[in-house]
Every structure is written in structure tokens, then in C-alpha cells.
């Protein structure tokens, strides 16, 4: 991966998504739907005074945004890299267009090029970017500054990092108005900011305006950013992966809100996303990008339903499916390998005010995993699923409960016993980059557990393991930074398998990977389970992933088990309202499930 110090757009899915913070599940009152007005902000059609004169008349047939043969190069230490090599697309007023592609496809670069906010490493940009006929490419920054915010709004990807941590959110919303001189004074800016926060669906806007970003959940931060983007009443909105860092149900509410607003105000929306299903559901038209080119574009149903380009077909096929046959169950008479009873973990935290508080992260959780069985634990951020994973691995000690593996209780095992048992329970984490020492070669990383337990013949075993995870033997001399995200995760799996464990604890093993890579790693996991008779506990927020790898599922919320059972049964006939909500929130869920379930009111 090449990076300059100013930071090329790091492929967001390769490094691991920022883990969304505990989402305080804001209840979105139904009343906020349809409450949106542009207020006293300028309505559409106030394009004068920006200093960029139209080259042609803004006729009725003209698209709002027209990108034509856009090319962007990045200068890196190893020379020039073409990020975008000829991208063309249009967005009409009131239309939603999805720009779909995997990491490194150049889709985010297109969005930034339209705004004129490319990183400095970007070399000469050629082609054309027209907003209602006015050429934006090559315009001086001072003129572009008058277009940004006022005519083009931007909703960024990582909500918590995209708000200034040292400014109150109300101030940050008001700034979008103040830089364009749309409010007379501070007080008016404040009043408008509160209105905008309310319109964005935030509860108690007056109080929220005084909060700092770290006091809000990821979903709330994204609502603040939507308020910022809409503040000055732009006619075009560019949303770059606006929800990929958020839980599925939060994601759905936010996209509903964005859709509502753009429809009501006739704003054009360019939705940059890696998620094909989401694109199909939200956009009228889809443009698919691969290696810097738009390879296919057209109406969503057509592109997804009958993809013409080979790459689009690959993307459609790789999308984790809710219709594929679920993973095979363990032998019905298999004895339990792992029995968990009454697991409980309480954390002492300090509130910002300095008071001590106890948070019950995991409470009365019990389950069993059969030999050769595979259990999926699903839930949103804060549901306690990752805490459970930490307890199973005994990286953390439970406050109560038993974790019995093969008759030995891990919760009370002595240090020596625990060390012996670690051979049998191995982890694979979400962030493959962070869980490999960057200075170790792949061979050394895989051999490390073998060395720790004094296993001989390590070189041969490493070769065997690389073969097992379908990596070429030559990889052993490379370092983690030289590998792709998918390859790195395979290395992590090989390391986990080194000591021939009986149970793998997989914590979001594929959520940092592109869909096509995801599909291949999931296939590998399914094969390994079959070949080696492994048992899995797989933690995921993605129900499709669970369906593909697991035969049993556990739905968690607020540290408790809500529902459990065979995957096929639970997904087809969810008993709990929350499980239904999770299933419905999956983009493209409707019409894909065999037995549609009505969303709960």
C-alpha cells in the first residue's frame, strides 16, 4: 500500500472499518419524517453570485452534475498511480445515482474531485466536472469554496472522525451557514443550527447543539453531518459511504432520512458505496467502477438484474446472499465441545462527569457448541458479542459463569491449565493489519504459536498451513504491509490453525474486506470446517455471513441472548421483533428472503 504523508485515500475496507461506538440507539420519532423544510436557507436555483459563470445556459434538459472523462493520478514514491482513468457519469436534479466499486476502484476519488478536495498528492486532473453547465475543474480554490457547501453538500464516511472534536456540534452546523454569509449573527446561526439538527432527526436539538462529538454516538454524529451538508441548501449531495461505519438498523434509518430529504427538496444525490445491494435499493441509477473506470451504468434494476460487464457480474455473485443454502449442521449426535453457562461481565466505567458507573456488558449468556458445529453470534454495537468473544478466549475474565471446554472450566482454570487449553481455542480478529506484527515475516508470524509451544518441524508445518489457507509458499518471506487485506486475513487464519485447535473464535473475520474477497474467505472457512472438523464461534453484525458459515445462531442485544436456534429456522421465522428488524435492515432484504416478514411497527 502506498501512502504519502498527506494520506492517499486509504482503501477504507482494507484497514478495518472504524468500529462504531456504542450506539445509543436514538429512537427516531416518526414525526421527524416529513418535517424537513429548507427553512430560511436558500432554495434550489440560487446559483448566481458564485463567481463561476455558466458556459452554457442551464436548460431544462441539462443534468445537475456531469462528470466527463475524469482522470486523476496520484504521485507516490513509486511513481504515478492512476486512480481514476476516464470516469463519466451524470446526476439529474432530484435523482439518486449510486457509484459502486470496491476499495481502490477510484469511486471516492471521483466524489472528492467533484468537490475539488483531492489530497495534495493528486497530480493533474483532466476531463470535465460541470455543475449545471459550469466547469468546476481548474477553478481557483476561492471560487470553489463558494460552491462547496452552498451548492454541493458532502456527507463523509467516518462520522466520528469527520467532526471537529474540540467544537460543539451546533457551532459546526452553524459554520456551514456562516462561511457563506447566510446568517446575520451568531445568535441566528445558533437558532438555525438547532432547527437543522432537529430536521436531521436528533432528539432535543437545543441540548444536542451544545454537545461535543465524543458525547454522541456514531449514528448521531452522522445525523449532525447530514445537517451540516444540508445547511446551506445545496442542490447536489455527495455521500461517500455515509453509513458503512454504522449498524444496519441505524444505517437504514439514515438512508431513509437522506432519501426523504432529497426527494422533498429535489436535491440530486451521488451515493458512493461498496455495497451493491444498498445501491440497488436506494438509487435510481447505478454506475459501477473498477480500476478507475466506470465499466457499466444504467437503471439499478437493469444493472443488478442483468449485469452486462464481467466485473459487475462478479460483484453481484459475490454479494453475501440470504438465499444461498445455509451451512450444514454438525452431526446430530455430536457431543458438545463447548458449554457456556450464565456468563456475566460487568465493567466499571467513569462518566465524563467523573461518577463511577457499572455497565453490564454480558449477562446470563449460555450456549453450547457441538463438535464440528458452528455458532454465529449476531448483534449490533454494544450488544456484548465482542465481550463474549474475549471471554471465550479468556483474554478477559468473566465475573460469573462457566466456560467449559472438553470438561475443563476456562473461567476458573489455573494458569498452567489455561496455557494448555489455549492450544485448543484460537482467535481470528477483524483487523488483520493490526493483529500481525508489521516487522514479522508471514512465516515467522505463523510459526510463532508453534515456537511458543516448542513444536518441532516448524518450517514444514508453516508450508503446510499456507497451503491449507490457499496461499502460495512464496508468501512466507513477505511482510504484512505487502499483502492485500484478504491475504492478510488468510495468514491470520493459518496462524490460528497452527496448533491444530478444536475451536476458532472468529470476531468479525470478513467485515473489513471487499465483498468479492469476503466471499472467498468465507468459502475457505466453510471448507476448513469440513476438512478439519473444526468448531467455530463466529461474531458478526452481518447476518448473511452467519448464514453462510454457521448452523446455529444466537441473537444478542444489550448483553443478553434474545433468540437462538438453527440458522435456517431463526432467519425464516424470527420470533423476536429485534431479529426481524435486523433482517429487514439488510439492504435488499425485501424480495430476497423466501418468506417476507412484515417489519414491526
Amino acid at each position, binding site marked *: 500500500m502506498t501512502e504519502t504523508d498527506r494520506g492517499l485515500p486509504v482503501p477504507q475496507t482494507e484497514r478495518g472499518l472504524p468500529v462504531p461506538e456504542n450506539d445509543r440507539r436514538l429512537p427516531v420519532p416518526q414525526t421527524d419524517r416529513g418535517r424537513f423544510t429548507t427553512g430560511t436557507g436558500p432554495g434550489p436555483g440560487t446559483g448566481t453570485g458564485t463567481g463561476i459563470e455558466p458556459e452554457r445556459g442551464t436548460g431544462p434538459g441539462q443534468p445537475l452534475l456531469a462528470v466527463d472523462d475524469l482522470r486523476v493520478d496520484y504521485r507516490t514514491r513509486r511513481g504515478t498511480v492512476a486512480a481514476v482513468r476516464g470516469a463519466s457519469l451524470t446526476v439529474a436534479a432530484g435523482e439518486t445515482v449510486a457509484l459502486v466499486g470496491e476499495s481502490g476502484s477510484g469511486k471516492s476519488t471521483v466524489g472528492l474531485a467533484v468537490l475539488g*478536495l483531492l489530497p495534495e498528492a493528486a497530480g493533474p486532473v483532466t476531463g470535465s466536472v460541470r455543475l449545471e453547465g459550469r466547469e468546476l475543474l481548474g477553478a481557483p480554490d476561492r471560487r470553489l469554496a463558494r460552491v462547496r457547501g452552498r451548492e454541493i453538500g458532502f456527507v463523509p464516511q467516518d462520522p466520528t472522525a469527520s467532526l471537529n*472534536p474540540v467544537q460543539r456540534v451546533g457551532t459546526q452546523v452553524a459554520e456551514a451557514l456562516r462561511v*457563506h454569509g447566510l446568517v446575520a449573527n451568531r445568535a441566528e446561526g445558533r437558532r438555525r443550527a438547532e432547527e437543522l439538527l432537529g430536521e436531521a432527526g436528533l432528539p432535543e436539538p437545543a441540548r444536542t447543539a451544545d454537545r461535543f462529538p465524543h458525547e454522541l454516538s456514531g449514528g448521531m454524529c452522522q445525523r449532525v453531518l447530514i445537517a451540516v451538508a444540508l445547511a*446551506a441548501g445545496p442542490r447536489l449531495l455527495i455521500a461517500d459511504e455515509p453509513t458503512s461505519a454504522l449498524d444496519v438498523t441505524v444505517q437504514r434509518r439514515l438512508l431513509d432520512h437522506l432519501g426523504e430529504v432529497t426527494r422533498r427538496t429535489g436535491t440530486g444525490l451521488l451515493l458512493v458505496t461498496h455495497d451493491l445491494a444498498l445501491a440497488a435499493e436506494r438509487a435510481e441509477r447505478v454506475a459501477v467502477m473498477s480500476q478507475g473506470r466506470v465499466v457499466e451504468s444504467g437503471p439499478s434494476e437493469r444493472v443488478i438484474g442483468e449485469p452486462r460487464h464481467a466485473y459487475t457480474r462478479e460483484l453481484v455473485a459475490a454479494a453475501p446472499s440470504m438465499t444461498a443454502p445455509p451451512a450444514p449442521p454438525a452431526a446430530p449426535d455430536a457431543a458438545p465441545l463447548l458449554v457456556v453457562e450464565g456468563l456475566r461481565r460487568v465493567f466499571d466505567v467513569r462518566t465524563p462527569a467523573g461518577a463511577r458507573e457499572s455497565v453490564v456488558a454480558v449477562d446470563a449468556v449460555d450456549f453450547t457448541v457441538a463438535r464440528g458445529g458452528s455458532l454465529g453470534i449476531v448483534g449490533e454495537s454494544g450488544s456484548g458479542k465482542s465481550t463474549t468473544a474475549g471471554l471465550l478466549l479468556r483474554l478477559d475474565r468473566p465475573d460469573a459463569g462457566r466456560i467449559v471446554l472438553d470438561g475443563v472450566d476456562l473461567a476458573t482454570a489455573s494458569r498452567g491449565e489455561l496455557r494448555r487449553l489455549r492450544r485448543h481455542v484460537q482467535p481470528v480478529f477483524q483487523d488483520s493489519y493490526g493483529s500481525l506484527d508489521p516487522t514479522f515475516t508471514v512465516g515467522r508470524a505463523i510459526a510463532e504459536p508453534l515456537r511458543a509451544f516448542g513444536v518441532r518441524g516448524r518450517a514444514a508445518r508453516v508450508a503446510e498451513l499456507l497451503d491449507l489457507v490457499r496461499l502460495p509458499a512464496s508468501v512466507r518471506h513477505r511482510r504484512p504491509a505487502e499483502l492485500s487485506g484478504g491475504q492478510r486475513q488468510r495468514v491470520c487464519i493459518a496462524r490460528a490453525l497452527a496448533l491444530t485447535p478444536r475451536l476458532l473464535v472468529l470476531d468479525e473475520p470478513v467485515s473489513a474486506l471487499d465483498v468479492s474477497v469476503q466471499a472467498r474467505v468465507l468459502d475457505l472457512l466453510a471448507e476448513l470446517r469440513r476438512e478439519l472438523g473444526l468448531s467455530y464461534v463466529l461474531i458478526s453484525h452481518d447476518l448473511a455471513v452467519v448464514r453462510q458459515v454457521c448452523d446455529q445462531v444466537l441473537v444478542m442485544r444489550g448483553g443478553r441472548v434474545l433468540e437462538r436456534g438453527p440458522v435456517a429456522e431463526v432467519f425464516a421465522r424470527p420470533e423476536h421483533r429485534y431479529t426481524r428488524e435486523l433482517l429487514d435492515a439488510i439492504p435488499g432484504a425485501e424480495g430476497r428472503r423466501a418468506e417476507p416478514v412484515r417489519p414491526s411497527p
Partner: protein
Amino acid sequence: MTRYVLVRVVNGLFVLWAALTASFLVLHLVPGDPVAVMLRGAGGEGTAVDPAAADELRAELGLDQPVYRQYLEFVGDAARGEFGTSFRSGDEVTAVLGGALPATLELAGAALLLTLVVGVAAAVAASLLPTAPLRSAVLSSTVVGNALPSFWTGIILLQVFSFGLGWFPAFGAGDLSQLVLPAITLALPGIGLLTQVLGRGLRAALAEPYVRTARAKGASRARAVFVHALRNAAIPAMTLFGLMIGGIVAGAVVTETVFAREGVGRLTAEAIGTHDFPVIRALVFLAGALYVVVNLAVDLIYPRVDPRIVLRSA
């Protein structure tokens, strides 16, 4: 908050006690007899010392007491803010210090102001430059100030601006023109350091997503720097500046010597040369107190700059 300040003050008193104790012990371990130095007076090393006179003086100064006695007496006096009389001049130590302080305060104030203004201006200016090579050039050039020892820069400045061009008087203190060269000499290393730390902090902050958000609102590059990046980059620079304030006495030793200015720095150098224990102890106390107070002040300002910082006395 009140509790936090209270705990910190108690901690500070402990630090002062430790500093005083350490200085007491070190001074007693250092070879050399202050009484001998005092009796020789202007005579220098070779002058003979009358043993009877020496014993008399020793008794008068309390130096004939056992070390633990001297220590307890010393701590008790220090707690009351009394540091005794100078071995050398026989004046009250507080008066000696009081006489030296104004000139040093003037010099330190001027130098710190210069550091802050020039350092922040250079860092901000560097981050506003259009291309990356230009920015690195400005940032790197300030390292020079940091790399040159102040006794050398002081002498060069004197050669050029006093003896050569005759713009500023070479020595003495009193009016503003006499303050310029010493203040620059004392400020130069700090300017380099502050520009480096703040400049790099600004560069990191400007690459953050929230700066992109601000630019996407229509904020200019300058606004992004001043309103958004500067405050986020300020914390490490504040820490550094606090340390600089604390270390100003050490810097004054060299500067005041080179420019033959009266002041705490000169006093320190002389007191050490003559084994003037009471004066040295008072200076150690002063420097320690300065560190403690400045550190506490900086820590109390942190949460005002970054609301994510919570003060905890634990």
C-alpha cells in the same frame, strides 16, 4: 475540580520537598569548603586560611552542626519561606533574590513572548504554504535555531549587531534596546522547537477528516487552519511551552553571563562558584516552584482546549 487542584498542590509540595532535599544532599557531597572560599575572599586558591577564624565562621553559619540537624533546620526554615543569609554577601537570601528577579523576569518575559509569537506564526505560515516542499523547508529551517548553542548565538549577535553595526548596546540592562539581543538569544532554541512541534501537529490535524468536512462546507484553507486545525494541534505545543517556562532559569544562566546582565541566571552561576549554599537552595526552590506552578496551570488549561480531556486526581 477543586479536589483535583488540591491533590495537585499537595503533589507539588512533595516535588518541592524532594527538590530541596536532593539539592541539600548534593551540595554536601560536592567537594569544597564554603568557609574556606569565604575566608580566602579575593585572595584566590592559594591564600592561607586561619583555622580559628574558620571554626568561628562555621559555628556562626551553623555548619558545625551534624548534617541531619542542618537538614531539619533548613527544611523548617524553607517551609516558612526563610532561606537564611548569603554566605558570600551576608545579605538576606530573599533580598538577594529579590534584587536579581526583576531583570530576569523582564528578560524571560520578552524571550517567552518572542518564542510564542514567532513560533506560532512560523508554524501557521508554514502550514499555509501551497506546496509540501515549501512547508518542509520552512519547518526544517527553524531547526537551525534549536541546533545552535545559545552561548554561540549570543556572541555572534553581539559581534554583528553591537560591535559591527552598533544597533544595540552590548551589555547592561535597563532600557528596551538592551533587552533585544539577550531576548533573541534566549528565545531562539525555543522558537525552533515550538515551530517543529506545532507545525507537525498542524500538518497531522490538516489531514484529519474533520478538516475535509470544514472545507466541504466552504471554509477557506486559512479558516481550516485557524479555526479547526490550530486548536487540535495545540495540546503538545502547550506542554512544550510549559516546559520552556519552567526551564527559563537554566537558559538565563548562559544568556545573562554572555551579555553581562544582572539577574537570577548570573546569581546562580556565582552562587555555585562560591558554594553559597543558602542562595543555591533558594534558587532550586524557585526553579522547582516555577515548574510545579506552570505544570499545574498547563494541566488546568488542557480541558478548556480539548473537551475530551477529563482531569482526574487518581
